[in-house]
């Protein structure tokens, strides 16, 4: 008996913990930091992560515009991804994502984007790299400046920011136009390498025909800063240490990722491969909100109906099962936040199916219990037999569901059927949790109740409904 009460207590603690995570309130910093991958970052878990079909936004599937039978240049898609990411981050959206899919495709998700058409154009556009003379002014990486080659860069940015189509950037010298020395066309090859002390650096070769001018400029400006600009944004501000004839290096306090990213951007100011839009899907924020409101309303009505039905049919055990079901739903929501699971409409379908299976597990057990009671077993024995006899069916049903989930997830992941993937994730999380709540939690509650109120229950057929 004591054991049962300890279990009941532990279950209630777990319930309180998951309820705390699931509620849309502020969570302690240690929890949010523990969930984030990097150092000094946090993951906000106030709200569930919703897919674009629920919160509104645009999803674009881009494909390399090179004929099927021709292999892509090595690493071209990875380089394109880095450049697309940069452009997407410039749009000023909350949590945009860029993911590679298979060998030739990339999925870009733009939540809450106001002008999807223009955003897509920005992503696919060709950028231009410039080497710019800063004239001694203190310009830092990520600043925006005008250059003689692109005198309206700042004005265009300000306009886009005002229209809500770009993120605000630092603009230290809005009225200044800096002189462009060379454009990125003079670069022949750019790679990130390590020097003899294992420091990361960027090595570049120049094309023969134009290196004369570059040599003259660098020879006359040793000790000055030569800024590298992409589409008006400062990428790097190295100091010229020596005259550069046909190749040079940029040194600095680079990590490997920084060096590689800078090398890629210098190499392909433009995208390394043309990208074609093969699928674009925009869900208006109002439609997404509609779906959420209505799903919620339907969920509440459906849940209430199940509660009434379970209590009418199974009385006390039914009530205990509904409590277990409430714990189940809370655990699921908490898991979605912790993992995290991005909730989509098919994901909700998977969740509904898992609730169905959780309820079914309880129905199986209770029907078995009633059968045993009708055969004249004692209450205590009937409860235990009900659980043990129903278990193989619950196990086999759930395991075969998990098997199909694994297959669906694998296919969804490899073939870009994100519909199938979202469904498989919520269903498998739900099935795993339901084996815990529908069997263990309900049984513990039943045993706990029996040990404290058992004698009174024995005489009450009404409470058990058989």
């Amino acid at each position, binding site marked *: 008996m004591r054991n049962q009460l300890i279990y009941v207590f532990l279950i209630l603690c777990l319930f309180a913990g998951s309820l705390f995570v699931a509620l849309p309130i502020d969570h302690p910093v240690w929890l949010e930091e523990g969930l984030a991958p990097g150092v000094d970052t946090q993951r906000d878990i106030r709200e569930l992560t919703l897919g674009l079909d629920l919160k509104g936004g645009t999803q674009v599937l881009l494909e390399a515009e090179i004929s099927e039978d021709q292999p892509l240049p090595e690493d071209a898609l990875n380089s394109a991804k880095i450049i697309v990411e940069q452009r997407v981050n410039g749009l000023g959206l909350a949590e945009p994502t860029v993911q590679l899919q298979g060998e030739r495709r990339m999925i870009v998700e733009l939540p809450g984007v106001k002008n*999807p*058409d223009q955003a*897509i*154009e920005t992503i696919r556009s060709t950028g231009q790299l410039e080497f710019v003379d800063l004239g001694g002014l203190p310009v830092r990486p990520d600043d925006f400046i005008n250059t003689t080659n692109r005198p309206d860069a700042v004005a265009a940015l300000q306009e886009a920011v005002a229209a809500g189509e770009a993120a605000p950037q630092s603009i230290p010298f809005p009225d200044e136009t800096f002189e462009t020395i060379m454009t990125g066309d003079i670069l022949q090859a750019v790679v990130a390498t390590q020097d003899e002390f294992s420091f990361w650096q960027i090595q570049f070769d120049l094309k023969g025909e134009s290196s004369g001018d570059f040599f003259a400029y660098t020879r006359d400006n040793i000790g000055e800063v030569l800024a590298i600009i992409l589409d008006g944004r400062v990428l790097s501000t190295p100091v010229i240490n020596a005259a550069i004839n046909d190749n040079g290096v940029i040194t600095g306090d680079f990590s490997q990722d920084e060096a590689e990213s800078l090398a890629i951007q210098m190499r392909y100011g433009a995208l390394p491969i043309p990208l074609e*839009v*093969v*699928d*674009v*899907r*925009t*869900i*208006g924020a*109002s*439609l997404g909100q*509609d*779906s959420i409101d*209505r*799903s919620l309303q339907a*969920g509440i*009505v*459906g*849940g209430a*109906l199940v509660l009434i*039905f*379970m209590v009418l*049919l199974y009385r006390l055990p039914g009530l205990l099962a509904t409590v277990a079901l409430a714990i189940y739903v809370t655990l699921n929501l908490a898991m979605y936040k912790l993992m995290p699971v991005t909730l989509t*409409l*098919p994901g909700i*379908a998977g969740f*509904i*199916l898992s*609730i*169905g*299976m959780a*309820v*079914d597990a309880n*129905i*199986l057990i209770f*029907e078995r219990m*009633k*059968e045993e009671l009708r055969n004249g077993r004692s209450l205590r024995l009937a409860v235990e037999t009900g659980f043990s006899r129903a278990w*193989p*069916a619950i196990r*086999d*049903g759930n*395991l*075969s569901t998990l*098997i*199909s989930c694994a*297959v*669906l997830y694998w*296919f*969804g992941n*490899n*073939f*870009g*059927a994100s*519909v*199938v993937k979202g*469904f498989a994730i919520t269903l498998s999380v739900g099935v795993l949790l339901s084996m815990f709540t529908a069997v263990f939690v309900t049984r513990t509650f039943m045993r706990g109740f029996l040990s404290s109120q058992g004698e009174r229950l024995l005489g009450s057929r009404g409470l058990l409904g058989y």
Partner: protein
Amino acid sequence: MYRLVERRKLWFLVSLLGILPGILFIIWNVSSAGTLLPLSIDYTGGTQWEMRFSEPVAPSALGSVFVEEGFTDTKAFNVDDDRTVQVKFKNIDISQKEVIEQAIVEQFGEFDERLYRSIGPAIGAEVSQAALLAVIAASLLILAYIALAFREISHPFRYGVAAIAALVHDVLITVSFLSIMNLILGWELDALFLTATLTVIGFSVNDTIVIFDRIRENLRRHRGEPLAMVANRSIIETAQRSIATQVTALLVLAAILIFGGSTLRIFMATLIVGLVSGTYSSIFTATPLVVAWEEGSFLPKASKAVRAREQTAPA
């Protein structure tokens, strides 16, 4: 004792009547449109565009804008209310979209873009193939698992095959439903229908396993009884559970069908049909099939020997 599996002629006939409309429709569709079922733009490629205006807009008036721009096979219709129009036509790119958008705004005023989807034809075909492969692979693995889980009783493989047959039955029933709804309301096979089918498969296998599990248990408990009797007994014993589960599931699904948005309507209706079919097939398809296999005859033989044995066996 009820004689359920012995009446399988009737049950199979009911199944056949349920499946037949789908089969006929498929034949008709293949000959008229060249595809198995009417496919949505998820699979064929094309554009779907839903706009909500501030004033009511006649779908035909909006559709004529598209026709003027050269998209002659445009379909326009209201969804949810008379201010919201959905348009379907062929796959376009962004510059074409901007031209049409301008024409619409000039004629009908600004609108809220509720949904926009434009997809190239190649993508859809790939995804649907992958999904079909996934369903087949999952079915084979379930077959293997059931054969393994029932290895203690004789012919475990038959139970796996029967469960898969029930699963295929349920998919065919949802196809029939889609066919009929296509003729009435123009429903098409889209990605959500596919998800609904996956869900139905999940329910169906689960339902079948519950009955098979009871057969497995009863075979141990009532040794020497013919399989047909054990099967009948198992169906009856699990009937209460089947009904209770069915009712709870239907309560939830009906709530979503009524209160959920239009995006979920086709999905939920398909689920409800598939769910009812799933329960039917576990009782009236999968179980009779296992018995039929054991008796070596698809339809029941009214042999005297079988009857005689039934009468002497304890009921």
